[in-house]
């Protein structure tokens, strides 16, 4: 090739000009302003209008926020202080702070337990979110659900320890038996786990007070803590279940496929509120009489089912977007189904699905406020119920709901920022 060029092209540049920066007048803030905000008559008018609107809003909002009162003991006191100036009565937040966060029946002496759980969560979630942290930290993460359960609900430490023992025993039974087939392994694992849990139940019942934290029943959970519990548990459960449903829907086994399709289509076709009412009332009819099936657990099951159906559909979209060549390349190398999915297909499909999954996760987290309708006192339930109904704070709407909005916004914005960072980090295909 090169010698043909040397014959047909008569001039070839041999030394290259050095790089120079762009002219100074064409860079900098003035240039940016002119290009983006004042590039023409229409653009300039729009900029000024937007500016005016912004100033108008801040004009009303800033005095409300900055002139607010944080110390009054009820709304009448607030009104006396303000004399109709319309500043915010934020004293309700100070006075009802613990109720907003923990509900009104969580024992105040035990507030440190959910707080500690939240702090621990921030630590143990790190290795899940950031893959460059050492992988053994995931073991610590795996211990977290048991720790958090013990901290928040209390009771003897035997309950979480035996639950963990059941999981570990089940895992080893699975490893032993899986050589004879996946179904055999799964069954062996389940049987062993159930057996250990049954033993654990006996142990915990016989020693209810050894190494025990004060027991807090589920009906005493409330406030933003309840939203966090529901949100964290349901998101972390619905992702794996959603993946399984999406794979099941693609399966070549007709029964598996059929079950997944029916489940997804049914759950997606029903409003979440209906499912929550089912959890609250109807589910009790299906259970054997006398079983005390925890309300929070029932709600978790319903929200998880709901979210996993949506996540399954999001992931199905990601799976469908992968070229068939990826499946074929994985197959032609001799990878089996599980390996091909885990190593080749899912990493790529999940990456494509990140925006959709985050969408569902954020929506789910906000939907946890719907439990206020089945008379659970989450953050919104607390505000609408005990706080606004009290004679002290009847009428303080903006401050309370603004606070609720702010809390949810912080969490959801955090999730969104993380997902964008993750997408950038995973962008290896250089399209």
């Amino acid at each position, binding site marked *: *090739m090169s010698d043909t060029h040397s014959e047909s092209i008569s001039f070839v540049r041999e030394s290259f000009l050095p790089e120079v920066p762009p002219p100074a007048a064409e860079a900098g803030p003035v240039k940016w302003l002119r290009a983006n905000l004042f590039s023409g008559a229409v653009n300039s008018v729009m900029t000024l209008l937007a500016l005016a609107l912004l100033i108008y809003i801040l004009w009303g909002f800033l005095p409300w926020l900055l002139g607010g009162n944080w110390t009054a003991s009820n709304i009448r006191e607030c009104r006396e202080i303000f004399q109709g100036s319309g500043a915010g009565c934020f004293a309700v937040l100070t006075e009802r702070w613990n109720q907003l966060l923990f509900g009104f029946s969580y024992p105040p002496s035990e507030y440190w337990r959910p707080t500690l759980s939240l702090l621990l969560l921030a630590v143990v979630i790190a290795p899940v979110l950031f893959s460059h942290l050492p992988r053994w930290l995931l073991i610590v993460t795996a211990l977290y659900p048991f720790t958090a359960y013990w901290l928040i609900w209390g009771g003897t430490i035997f309950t979480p320890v035996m639950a963990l023992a059941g999981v570990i025993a089940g895992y080893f039974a699975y490893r032993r038996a899986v050589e004879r087939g996946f179904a055999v392994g799964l069954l062996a694992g389940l049987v062993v786990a159930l057996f250990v849990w049954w033993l654990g139940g006996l142990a915990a019942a016989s020693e209810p007070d050894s190494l025990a934290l004060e027991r807090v029943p589920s009906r005493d959970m409330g406030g933003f803590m309840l939203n966090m519990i529901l949100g964290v548990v349901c998101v972390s459960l619905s992702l794996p279940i959603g993946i399984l449903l999406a794979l099941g829907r693609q399966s070549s086994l007709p029964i598996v496929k059929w079950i997944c399709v029916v489940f997804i289509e049914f759950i997606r076709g029903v409003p979440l509120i209906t499912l929550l009412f089912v959890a609250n009332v109807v589910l009790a009819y299906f259970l054997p009489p006398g079983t005390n099936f925890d309300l929070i657990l029932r709600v978790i099951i319903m929200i998880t089912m709901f979210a996993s159906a949506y996540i399954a559909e999001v992931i199905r979209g990601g799976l469908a977007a992968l070229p068939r060549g990826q499946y*074929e*390349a994985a197959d032609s*190398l*001799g990878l*089996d189904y599980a390996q091909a999915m885990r*190593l*080749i297909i899912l990493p*790529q499909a999940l990456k494509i699905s990140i925006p959709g999954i985050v969408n569902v996760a954020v929506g789910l987290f906000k939907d946890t406020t719907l439990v206020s309708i089945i008379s659970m006192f989450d953050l919104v339930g607390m505000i609408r119920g005990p706080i606004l109904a009290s004679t002290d704070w009847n009428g303080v709407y903006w401050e309370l709901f603004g606070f609720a909005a702010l809390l949810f916004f912080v969490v959801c914005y955090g999730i969104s920022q993380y997902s964008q960072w993750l997408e950038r980090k995973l962008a290896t295909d*250089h399209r």
Partner: protein
Amino acid sequence: MMTHTDIQSGQAAQASAAPSAMKVSDEIAIEIENMNKWYGTFHVLRDIDLTVRRGERIVICGPSGSGKSTLIRCINALEEHQKGRITVDGTVLSSDLKNIDRIRSEVGMCFQHFNLFPHLTILENCTLAPIWVRKTPKKEAEETAMHFLRKVKIPDQANKYPGQLSGGQQQRVAIARSLCMKPRIMLFDEPTSALDPEMIKEVLDTMIELAEEGMTMLCVTHEMGFARQVANRVIFMDQGQIVEQNEPEAFFNNPKSDRTKLFLSQILGH
């Protein structure tokens, strides 16, 4: 395409001696007996009979839609056939998944569009299957991978992602990825037809080198220079059937069937 044939025509004389020098054993690598395949009601492959000996290099050509891809994809069960028997390396292809996975790990395959895994680096692309299928320790798998990457002449790209490589480089990585499984048979489905002319040569050179080492190869390709240089046999397919097969010299110089003549005049003519 033609330029490349020209480039290699100079080597043709010495290359014609090469195929006989490269030993073909009597051992049978692939045996296809009376194989038929349908897509729905469409009869794609009809009564295919083909025996490939170990060390043989076979080039398959034919017009578009004649079933060449389908044929070689049946050999590693990417497509299933409905009638007849395929024996690969002494194992009969059946619907038994364990069997299929074993055969696939013995048979390497290169695709027209490379199909590298875009989320893994070049090195990870090459070590993935040895680590998970062959249970090779990571260290050893990486050494093997570097060995084959050196062989296809891109060891310095090992830590890049496929999207950062040119088409020719990607196809050579795909070949290296297959070789890392130490396959006994290699299948190629038009490995050069998605590439620019300059890149075709680098990929063909890699394949020629592989042929000279005695790899059993089945290549669907229209690179006739390559066929002349390394093939023991050229197979011409049309409408799902093997119409003609012969040694390259005889195949190109006096094709027997009219359809072959027409095809060759179209592809070599101008």
